[in-house]
C-alpha cells in the first residue's frame, strides 16, 4: 500500500477543515505500520480514506500496484474483500439488532465466500479464530457481551472475507489494559497465521513500541516523523515526538530513563480550520525559530528510513 500526497478536506460553514493535508507513506507487505497522533490529528480520516469511506480530495492511493483512490461504492468487490477495517468503538460498530451469527454472516453473503450449507461452519470457524466458543456466542447480541468480546467479534467480522490488509483504528483504546493485552496478542497471532498486513492506528506510543515495525507520527493532518520503531524511540528527531514521548506516564525507572528530558509541554492541538501559517507545530514548539512561523518545512530523510519534517533538520545536519 502506497499513499502519495493524500489530501482530504471537509468543506463546512466555518471554513475548510484540512483534516489530511498532503501526506505520503507506504506500508510494506506483512509489516505492522503504526500511525500515531493526538485526537484531531487526522489519523481516523486517513483510515477512512484508505478503506474508501471518504473520497480523497487530492492525491493517490495504490494498493498492490493498483490505484484505489475511489469511494467505497465504486470500488471493485475484490478490493473491498481485501481491505478491511476494525473501528475504535465496538459498541457502536456492531448492529445491536443482529445476533453475532448474523453479523458474521453478512460479509460471507456479500462476497459469496461460502455456500448456504457451509456458511454456519465458517461462522463457527471465525469465532474459534478469535477464541470465542461458538456455541456460547453465536446467538448472543452485542449488548450481552463485554467490550473486549465485542471487539473480538469486530475483528472476526473484518477477517471473514480473508483480507490481506487490515486497518485497525484504535482497536483497544476503549478497553482496559488487561483486555488490551489479550486482543493485541490475538492480533499478533492472526497476523502470523493469516499473513496479514496491519495499519495500526493509536495514540498510545508505549503500545506502538511493542508491536509496530515502523511508526508514522501525524500532527494536524501532516506527517511530522517516520522511523523504524527502535530508532524512533531511541533517537527521536522532531520536537513534537519528544513532547509526546516525555508525556507518557511511566511505570518503572528504566522506562523513565528512556524518555527525553526537560521537554516543556504546552498548548493544545489547534483547530484544523485555522492551520497556523508555516510549520503547524510552531505555536507549541520549544525550539521555535524565526523561519518556522513563515515557511512550512518539507519532509527530509535524515538517516535511512528515518524522515522528519522540521526546519531543524532541513539542511540534513545531525542534531546538536
Amino acid at each position, binding site marked *: 500500500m502506497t499513499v502519495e500526497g493524500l489530501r482530504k478536506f471537509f468543506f463546512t460553514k466555518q471554513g475548510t477543515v484540512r483534516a489530511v493535508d498532503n501526506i505520503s507513506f507506504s506500508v510494506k507487505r506483512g509489516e505492522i505500520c503504526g500511525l500515531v497522533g*493526538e*485526537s484531531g490529528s487526522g489519523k481516523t480520516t486517513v483510515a477512512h480514506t484508505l478503506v474508501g469511506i471518504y473520497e480523497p480530495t487530492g492525491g493517490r492511493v495504490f494498493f498492490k500496484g493498483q490505484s484505489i483512490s475511489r469511494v467505497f461504492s465504486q470500488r471493485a468487490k475484490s478490493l473491498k474483500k481485501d481491505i478491511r477495517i476494525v473501528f475504535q468503538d465496538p459498541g457502536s460498530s456492531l448492529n445491536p439488532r443482529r445476533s453475532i451469527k448474523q453479523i458474521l454472516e453478512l460479509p460471507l453473503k456479500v462476497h459469496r465466500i461460502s455456500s448456504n450449507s457451509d456458511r454456519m461452519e465458517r461462522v463457527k470457524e471465525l469465532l474459534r479464530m478469535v477464541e470465542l466458543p461458538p456455541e456460547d456466542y453465536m446467538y448472543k447480541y452485542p449488548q450481552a457481551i*463485554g*467490550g*473486549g468480546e465485542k471487539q473480538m467479534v469486530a475483528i472476526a467480522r473484518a477477517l471473514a472475507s480473508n483480507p490481506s490488509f487490515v486497518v485497525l483504528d484504535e482497536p483497544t483504546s476503549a478497553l*482496559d*489494559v*488487561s*483486555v*488490551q*493485552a*489479550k486482543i*493485541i*496478542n490475538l492480533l*499478533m497471532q492472526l497476523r502470523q497465521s493469516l499473513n496479514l498486513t496491519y495499519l495500526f492506528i493509536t*495514540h*498510545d*506510543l*508505549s*503500545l506502538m*513500541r*511493542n*508491536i509496530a515495525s515502523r511508526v508514522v507520527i501525524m500532527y494536524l493532518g501532516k506527517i511530522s516523523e517516520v522511523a523504524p*520503531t*527502535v530508532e524512533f*524511540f531511541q533517537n527521536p528527531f522532531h520536537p513534537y515526538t519528544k*513532547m*509526546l*514521548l*516525555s*508525556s*507518557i*506516564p*511511566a*511505570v*518503572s525507572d*528504566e*522506562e523513565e530513563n*528512556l*524518555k527525553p528530558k526537560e521537554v516543556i*509541554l*504546552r498548548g*493544545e*492541538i489547534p483547530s484544523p480550520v485555522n492551520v497556523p501559517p508555516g510549520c503547524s507545530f510552531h505555536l507549541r514548539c520549544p525550539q521555535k525559530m524565526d523561519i518556522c512561523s513563515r515557511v512550512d518545512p518539507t519532509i527530509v530523510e535524515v538517516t535511512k528510513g528515518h524522515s522528519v519534517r522540521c526546519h531543524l533538520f532541513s539542511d540534513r545536519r545531525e542534531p546538536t
Partner: protein
Amino acid sequence: MAQLLEIKNLHVGFRTFEGELKVLNGVDMVIGEGEKVGLVGETGCGKTTTVKSVLRVLPTPPARITGGEIFYRGKDILKMKPGEIRSLRRGEMSAIFQDPLAALNPVFTVGHQLRDVIKYSSRARHGKHLSKKEIRDRSIAVLKETGMPDSERILSNYPVQLSGGMRQRVCISEALSAAARLLMADEPTTNLDVTIQAQILRRLNELVAKRRPSILLISHSLGVVRNLTERVYIMYAGNIVEVARTKDLFADPSHPYTKALLKTVPKLTGEGISQGIPGRIPNYLNPPEGCRFHPRCGHAMPICKKERPALFILGDSHKVACFLYRR
C-alpha cells in the same frame, strides 16, 4: 499523620430486576491529612462507587449501602443529616469526574457555574457572603491557576465551546475553589490526549503542593498514579487487594492481580505484550465465593474458594489480601 477519611468495611449493592449486584465487598481505606492516595483498578471494579459513597451522591435506590462506615474527621458520613453532608460537600470535599462535559451543565456559562461554586463554598466554609466583584476576581484567579489561557473570556463561554483539556481545567477550578481538605479526582485525564494529560497532571500536582489538600486519585492507569501519589490501593471486584507506598508497590508488587496488571501495561522498553489476565471481571450477581480473584488466579489454592482473605501485613504500610502471604 492525622486521619482525614476512614472507610471501614464498606458494602454497597445495586438492586436490579435480576437480583442484587454485590459491588463493594468490604472496602477499607484510610486517607491521612494532606496525603496523596491513589486507587487503581479495572473498569467496573467499584472505584467510582467508592467515591460516590463518600460524597453520598449514589442514587439510592437502586444503590444500597448494606454495611460499613465512612468517617470524615471522626464523624460518620453515612449517618449525617442531608444539611450536614451538603455543607461538607460545599466547603470541605469535592470531586473531579472523568467526563468534564457530563460534569458541567451545558446550558450555563462557565462563569455562572464557577460563581455558584465559589458563592456557596465560601458561605459554607466561612459563613461569608461575597460581592459580585469578589466572586468574579476569584473565578478568574482560580482559572488562571489551572493554566487556563484567556481566563476572562472563558467565563462567558459555554462548556461546548471549550476543548476537552480546557473543560477539565474548568472542573479542576471548581473543585479547587470548593475543596479545603479532600479532593477526589476520578479518572481526571482518561479522556484526554497524553500531552494534555501530562500538562493537567503537572498543574494538579503543583496546586496540590501549594494548597495541601488530601487527594484521592482514581485511575486505571498505573503510570499516572505512580507519578502523583504517595500510597496506592489496588482494587479488584469491590475488594482492596493490595495497599502499599507507591514506591514499594511498583518495586515489589505482591498480589497476583497486581503483578498481572503491571505486566499488561505496554512498556517503552519494548519487552513485548504479556498474555493479559485470563477470564474476566466476575458477575456481581453471583460473585465467586472466597477470594473474588480466585477463578482468574494462577496460584489459587483450595482455601481461596472458601474463605475471603484478610489484609495480611507484609511490611511497613504494605498489606495484601492473599493467602499466599499468610503466616
